[in-house]
């Protein structure tokens, strides 16, 4: 998965969790939970979606690396060998 694929996947996951969010309009370097108003259940669903779609099982200690839109995309791309 390259970064474009990762971005597309994130957009798909967010469409389910936070349908009104337009990825193009949010700050990619801001804390993702605050920026997108995600609670801990939403964030868990996001990480679960990454697992289900790409087979990436993110350990809890890595959660901070997924703390921004850019961080999420970079992590997903690198963890899948992209």
């Amino acid at each position, binding site marked *: 998965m390259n970064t474009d694929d990762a971005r597309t996947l994130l957009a798909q996951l967010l469409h389910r969790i*936070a*349908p*009104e969010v337009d990825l193009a309009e949010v700050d990619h370097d801001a804390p993702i*939970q*605050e920026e997108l*108003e995600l*609670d*801990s*259940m939403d964030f*868990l*669903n996001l*990480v*679960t979606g*990454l*697992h*289900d779609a790409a087979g990436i*099982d*993110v*350990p*809890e*200690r890595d959660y901070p690396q997924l703390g921004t839109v850019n961080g999420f995309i970079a992590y997903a791309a690198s963890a899948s060998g992209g």
Partner: protein
Amino acid sequence: MPSLGADMDAGTVLEWRVQPGDVVHRGDIVAVVDTEKSDIEVEVFEDGVVEELLVAVGEEVAVGTPLARLGSLTEGAAAPEPIEAAPSEAEPVAAPEGRVRSSPRARRMAAEAGLDLAEVAGSGPGGAVVAGDLSKPGPRPPSLEPTDRSRRAEGTRPSLSSTRTETAERLAAPAVPGRPTERSGAERQAAMRHAIGELMARSKREIPHYYLATTVDLSAALTWLRAENEQRSVTERILPAALLLKATALALREVPALNGFWVDDGFEAAEGVHLGVAVSLRGGGLVAPALHDADQLTLDEVMAALKDLVERARAGRLRASEMADPTLTVTNLGEQGADEVLGVIYPPQVALVGFGRIVDRPWAVDGMLGVRPTVRATLAADHRASDGAAGSKLLAAIERLLQRPEDL
């Protein structure tokens, strides 16, 4: 039409999931009903055969109105049982001679707005005036706001013409297949704010709240949880919220005086512990459906039930039984929230437990100062049903239970 909460006295059938002739079993979803707060799935409580649907899609009826007739599975000729002639706060809409048929809420709203019910076209059973006739879904005409007391004081009567016209249009609207009365996002939003406002105003008007708060050390709970989650796939992980819910449910078993309902000037202890879980919805508003028998579930089961409940609450797919019977509500602000929440009790419940954000705080143990993850746990309780001693006991039990997370 089941009563899906203290604030509801009418609902609209959005969808039938069964047809006459279908065999249904206890727990099956038979219909979807629209309330001010969200769409609710209605379950059937007995096995049987659907004989007749009594309420058409799009029709709004008062709480207590039979929705369908159910025949016995074994004896086809047995007397049919009405589905959902559920007991409710609303009295039957049948009225004595000379009195306008109306639902209690419609009467209250009319009285507060200074309206004469005889002049309102009723759309309920037998032409009864129901709340919906006085307020269209969504923002109401300003003249019908119950808070508009100045107008009444001046002795002028708000015009009824707009209400009548809207009602007539609504009744005359052709039956559209699908979901004719489904509301737009903005209408839903306004209706939900209104419903929350009514219920919370009633709570603050009727319930003498008292409040308690305590700070709970979560280091044991979170250390245990981290180690546990470390070994689990992301799909199996547990959130701190599940620990807080389970601890609250177990604590309630020790303090039954806070688990139940205030009905007819008396406290009724509930049979089980059904935690109302306050779920905030994207775009505003919240619902607090029941997580049934939370004290009986394992932590994994609490987590799975919580996940499912949050997902369905946000998708507008809650079930009637979940709306009707929470015995105590828990509101958990989560990571993005404030440090502490002093809640408003959901009538007819008698208490509400609140958890703030988990925060590192300075913490003294054995004369030494350290930094620990902590949470502010609060209780709002009904002074008619309990005193501070019972409330303190509940918070102390929650705190104690959270120190032994492996036993939760």
